[in-house]
């Protein structure tokens, strides 16, 4: 038998166009996703040099970062409008398919790729967006690139890459009730820090990962970049195949059977070796809440906010002090005593149908706290439609949540969905950086269930005892 290989090595070997010793390889890209913010300068670059898009059929564009989530037919911000119009013109000029404003498939790029079946096992996928790692949930090698690289992929359908090092993140054990995939990835980053994945491609393995749905796997792979890894993936299995069957761009009939065979064979072999391995026990995880300004500054909901005086070293002490000051928090108080003013349920981490169902299930006839403004932003038009068919919009609206149009929204607050300075938001997104949700806004990352519970209570609560 040949040497056992990881899925990462198998995809790599399948897609290398050529490679010389000691140099990066030229890697073929199977799917290039494009959005309005990181592409205009790339298309402009092509135009200036009289170049074309090599494979428009392997390219797919949407609008998400800038789009309004109310009154989507009027875009007040002229600069945003110009950016969206520019994408439309570029797609027309270069023949790239676009799900733009008003299109039934428009949505967050990392939500629509999977739901349309564009995202498939074994594909190399890039996008000018760091959360491209999301697509790894399907056993694709998917990573974010900069705008120069976007231009490079448009022109050549390839990218220069050094062979990645592999990191096995093994999560075993039974996840408790009320504890989610979001809590797994937050707990992992809290344990190992924001750069333990730098330079690696992560494969998430272990029985806790195997049991997760595709949506949950996407939540985990999504935040690989918050651990420093450009890509994170899960070997495909029957769950993956079942999800893809019947999707718009998935193969059909006998071709599907053939693809399925190939997809399942991509899974990492027994005994394959990784450059490094870390572990996590899912049964020990409680619901997580970030308290600081990077995702590793995170505690269990029943813990107290850390004290800088107990930090391991001067650097950590300074980082905790800076974070507490920005967040307007005191050390040593329980996180559950911290009141919030905003709740955001959405983003490419947690805006899929299942996320919205889980959040809605917490409501139980209760109302959003009078001090809280809570918005729900479905990840795509498809998610929105499915949720409405199930009556979720009514459940949210009756409880006092706002039900919005799809987009990135308050995840990065590039449109009007901004958390005001000094105010606090429980958010299902992926980044709690300074100013992320608005200048001087304070972000706490949580799961959809925890966000819904916080909206009702007006402060963080342990969703497990909030019945």
């Amino acid at each position: 038998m040949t040497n056992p290989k990881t899925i990462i090595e198998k995809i790599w070997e399948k897609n290398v166009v050529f490679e010389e010793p000691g140099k990066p390889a030229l890697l073929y890209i199977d799917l290039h996703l494009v959005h309005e913010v990181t592409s205009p300068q790339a298309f402009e670059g092509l135009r200036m040099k009289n170049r074309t898009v090599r494979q428009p059929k392997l390219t797919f564009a949407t609008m998400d970062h800038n789009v309004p989530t109310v009154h989507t037919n009027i875009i007040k911000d002229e600069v945003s409008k110009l950016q969206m119009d520019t994408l439309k013109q570029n797609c027309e000029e270069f023949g790239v398919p676009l799900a733009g404003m008003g299109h039934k498939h428009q949505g967050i790029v990392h939500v629509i790729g999977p739901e349309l079946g564009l995202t498939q096992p074994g594909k190399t996928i890039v996008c000018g967006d760091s959360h491209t790692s999301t697509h790894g949930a399907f056993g694709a090698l998917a990573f974010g690139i900069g705008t120069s690289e976007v231009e490079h992929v448009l022109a050549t359908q390839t990218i220069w890459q050094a062979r990645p090092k592999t990191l096995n993140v093994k999560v075993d054990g039974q996840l408790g009730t009320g504890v989610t995939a979001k809590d797994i990835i937050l707990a992992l980053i809290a344990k190992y820090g924001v750069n333990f994945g730098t330079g690696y491609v992560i494969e998430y393995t272990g029985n806790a990962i195997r049991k997760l749905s595709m949506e949950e796997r996407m939540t985990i792979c999504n935040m690989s970049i918050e651990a420093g890894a450009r890509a994170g993936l899960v070997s495909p299995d029957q769950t993956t195949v079942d999800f893809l069957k019947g999707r718009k761009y998935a193969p059909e009939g006998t071709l599907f059977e053939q693809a399925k065979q190939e997809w399942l064979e991509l899974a990492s072999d027994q005994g394959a070796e990784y450059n490094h391995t870390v572990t996590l026990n899912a049964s020990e995880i409680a619901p997580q809440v970030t308290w600081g300004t990077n995702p590793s500054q995170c505690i269990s909901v029943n813990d107290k906010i850390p004290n800088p005086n107990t930090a391991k070293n001067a650097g950590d002490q300074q980082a905790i002090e800076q974070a507490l000051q920005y967040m307007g928090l005191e050390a040593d108080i329980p996180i559950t005593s911290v009141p919030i003013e905003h709740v955001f349920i959405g983003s490419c981490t947690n805006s899929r149908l299942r996320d919205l169902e889980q959040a809605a299930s917490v409501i139980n006839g209760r109302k959003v706290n009078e001090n809280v403004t809570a918005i729900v932003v479905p990840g795509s038009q498809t998610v929105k439609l499915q949720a409405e068919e199930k009556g979720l919009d009514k459940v949210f609206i009756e409880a006092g949540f706002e039900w919005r149009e799809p987009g990135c929204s308050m995840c990065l607050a590039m449109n009007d969905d901004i958390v005001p300075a000094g105010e606090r938001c429980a958010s299902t997104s992926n980044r709690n950086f300074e100013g992320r949700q608005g200048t001087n806004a304070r972000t706490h990352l949580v799961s959809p269930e925890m966000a819904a519970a916080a909206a009702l209570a007006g402060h963080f609560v342990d969703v497990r005892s909030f019945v």
Partner: protein
Amino acid sequence: MEPIKQHTGLVYPLNRTNVDTDQIIPKQFLKRISRQGFGQYLFYNWRYDEKDNLRSDFSLNSPKYKTASILVGGENFGCGSSREHAPWALEDFGFKVIIAPSFADIFFNNCTKNGILPVVLPETEIQQLIKNAETDTYQLTVDLEANKVTDLTSFEASFHLAEYPRQMLLNGWDEISVTLTHQDKIATFERKHTVY
């Protein structure tokens, strides 16, 4: 892009870890469709107050660092969003070299595609450079041909940059032109490659 072989310049010390690209250039400035003019928004939320006035308490606003072209920062520099607007803003502001104990992968790549040289040095040496630049006006010379960082007195450190980005920076190559010389290999590959 402009080749970079050797650069001598004033050092600006930014003693913070995990400086993310949201900090380097906040999202409200990502709506522009050109590559130019981002320097004025660099570190916007640190450099300006709520009324858009320059803050006197942020070090980069001090006249002392006005002509700085080498930034020395903490570990995991450039983490977060893949926005290439971050190196565009740094470059437009006047930075040619960033020195840190470690960089986020995407940011590191983005720098090398824009003629900014990212240099990795050990934490102890970074701390020394930061101290020097905080106490006095402090110049460094970064020599990419010799892979060395030196000051006018005794500091000398070697660094390593992978050969591919090193050659790109030294020669100021346009990467797409280089790749297009391999077009026939790409075409051959495409003929036998299946994408479902």
